[in-house]
């Protein structure tokens, strides 16, 4: 029979909702990162596994300590930990990994007001903190890819006691990442292994190809705005092609410039974070363009071999201004009937 009026529930329109929710966005991002994570473990063995696991655990711990109880479930802490773990050198002492992850969430996220608050990506805050605090470890904690015994033992440096320098020396592969090798004037890696990722580098920044696939998955799932990576990679391609044309000796070719895993990770997974990127479509283009330009400038005209991290930080500082410039003009005509 008919319901009586007093049982009716009242709620303002709309009564429909799209199938998008913050935890779902986080879940898809994690899924998109799985291939490169698996590949990282294959490439670097236990070292990669431990780095990522410790980063995630430390992020969860920090979230539990600093955040509201409900926030643990939204998946953002796991994603932060995963991204941070993937962006670190594999043999970094695990206490540094945990320290950086804690800083990322406690300082980078909750000091800025929690989810949606930070003006800078928490992962970048954690990464930059580690880079600034422990530059020599960050510059040396590399391991060779596909090393024997990687599946059964951790690098000695990973197990350094908290706050102490590891007893064992770092492997210290010369020119740890392909780009820094190029910068130092050494021969570059072949283009194919550069893209496939069978090179030395950060845990999850070796395979540009897998990161690219993950990014495309996110675009397909409508989790990220495709304009940002398109503009970012496009502008890196454009500016590096121009430089290469001017002086092929000094500047690497376009495909080499694009084949950096750090660039891919930044373009698809960090730059697209909704909190640090502009809200409008025009803004997204400008934002990607600016970061791409910064990447090329920092790589080629500063001491850094890889400029993605700092370019992203600078780019996200631009975001509020881009948002103001590209603020949409409301339509004026009446719209009813």
């Amino acid at each position, binding site marked *: 029979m008919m319901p009586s009026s007093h049982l009716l*529930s009242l*709620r303002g329109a709309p*009564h429909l909702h799209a199938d*998008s929710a913050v935890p779902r966005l986080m879940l898809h991002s994690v899924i998109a990162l799985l291939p490169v994570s698996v590949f990282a473990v294959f490439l670097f063995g236990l070292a990669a596994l431990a780095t990522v696991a410790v980063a995630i655990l430390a992020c969860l711990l920090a979230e539990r300590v600093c955040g509201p109880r409900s926030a643990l479930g939204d998946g953002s802490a796991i994603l932060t930990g995963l991204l941070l773990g993937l962006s670190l050198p594999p043999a970094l002492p695990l206490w540094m990994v945990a320290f950086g992850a804690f800083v990322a969430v406690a300082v980078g996220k909750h000091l800025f007001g929690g*989810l949606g608050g930070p003006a800078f990506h928490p992962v970048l805050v954690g990464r930059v903190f580690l880079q600034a605090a422990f530059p020599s470890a960050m510059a040396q904690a590399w391991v060779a890819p596909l090393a024997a015994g990687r599946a059964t033992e951790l690098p000695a440096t990973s197990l350094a006691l908290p706050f102490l320098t590891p007893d064992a020396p770092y492997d210290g592969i010369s020119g740890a990442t392909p780009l820094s090798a190029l910068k130092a004037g050494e021969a570059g890696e072949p283009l194919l292994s550069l893209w496939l990722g069978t090179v030395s580098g950060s845990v999850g920044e070796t395979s540009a190809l897998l990161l690219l696939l993950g990014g495309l998955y996110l675009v397909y799932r409508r989790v990220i705005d495709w304009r940002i990576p398109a503009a970012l990679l496009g502008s890196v391609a454009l500016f590096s092609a121009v430089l290469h044309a001017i002086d092929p000796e000094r500047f690497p070719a376009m495909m080499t410039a694009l084949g950096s895993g750090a660039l891919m990770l930044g373009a698809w997974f960090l730059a697209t974070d*909704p909190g640090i990127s502009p809200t409008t479509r025009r803004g997204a283009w400008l934002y990607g363009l600016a970061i791409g330009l910064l990447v090329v400038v920092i790589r080629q005209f500063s001491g850094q071999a890889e400029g993605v991290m700092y370019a992203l930080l600078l780019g996200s500082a631009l975001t509020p201004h881009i948002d103001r410039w590209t603020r949409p003009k*409301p339509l004026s005509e009446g719209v009813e009937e």
Partner: protein
Amino acid sequence: MFGLRPAFPGGVRLPAVERHDSDALIRQMAFASLLRLPLRQHAGAASVAVVQPGDEVMRGQLLARAEADTAVPLHAPATGRVVRISAQPDGDGAAVGVIELAPAAGDTQEEITGRPLDPARCSPDELLRAIGDAGLVGLGGEAGSTHERLVRARAGGARVVVINGIEGEPGQARVPALLLRHGPDVIQGLRMVLRVLQTERSLLAVESHDGEAAGKLVQTVGADCGLTLRVLPPRYPQGAAGLLLRSLASNGADLNRAEAVVFSLATIAEIGRLLSRGWVMTDQLLTLSGDGLDKPGNYRVPLGTPIAFALAEAGARGDVERVLLGGPMRGKAVAGLERPIVKATTGLVAVAAGSAAGVPEPMACIRCGDCVTACPVQLHPAELGLLARRGENEAMFTDWYLDRCIECGCCSYVCPSHIPLVQMFRAARLQQRRLQRLAGEEVPA
């Protein structure tokens, strides 16, 4: 895609609409034992009752006279007796007179017949007067006096009549019913409007799922009154007139926005249906939908029918938890089922318990900008939401143009954090209106 693109900014793509044969069905709804007829059923001034309690009235007889320009006359939906005339609160809380009419049991309920009009033989003024006398209002949602609208359109030099054949809300199926069952009425109505405006050019806009039905209509009868068809890709809220005109213009329609006047398909069909038979407006074509109904579909519902009665007729189940006037995107949830169906009602949705449950808790804004992309009038809902939370209503209007919000609900629909954006905006605008009313009342005092 395929050369078609919705060319207003933003909007959302709702789940695709599939049409069935049953969508074209129109069922006549029986009379309830008591019809409650508010003296104001549309967006405009109330009319003035011309009957007394106890009067016996015939179906189609005038019950209330329009005195203001924006008012429309009200006619008896059924032969019966006026039981009572009282002041009752309407949906917004203002008091309005309500005529309560008890239909005579066992009456054949035939429509009293006035003079049928033929657009080819009447003068524009004659037609215009007849439209006014029939008590017609816009049936697409805006619900202003159709007479007044035509008068304004004629004064404004409207040259093109755009028939808005786009459902205002998801779940509604009035358009296929009108196209397939009321084709001749649509054509008659169009002829009358063209004659009133003394122009030749007209255009029918539908979304692709109704393209086939509209094509048939235009092919069979449309050609001789200059009606062209435009099929647009579906996108909510394309039914809003201003957005529809933008969409048409960028889909290649030769259209000067200043010269166009938009009427909903339902209004045009109703003009044709009523005037060509000499009838007046006594009922309303509605889609009753929602998972709480066993017999959803299109119904012709007498004005004044209580919502509870209409739902029961459509086979409402016991677990209906929420009832919406209109549709799921903009519809108001009703608090009392005794409220009547009126001229402004465009649809009725009965939501079963369970499907409406589990409204997710709002989370913090992650500044994703989805709402900015979705807003069809290019406001900045995220920023507005922030201001609303801080209670800075003033700035919402002065700096962020809240007065231009059409409350389509797209922002709330897309928000991944489930922030009730449009709900907050509605509250802010309500408060703003109250403040303005207060200020306005103080001036003469």
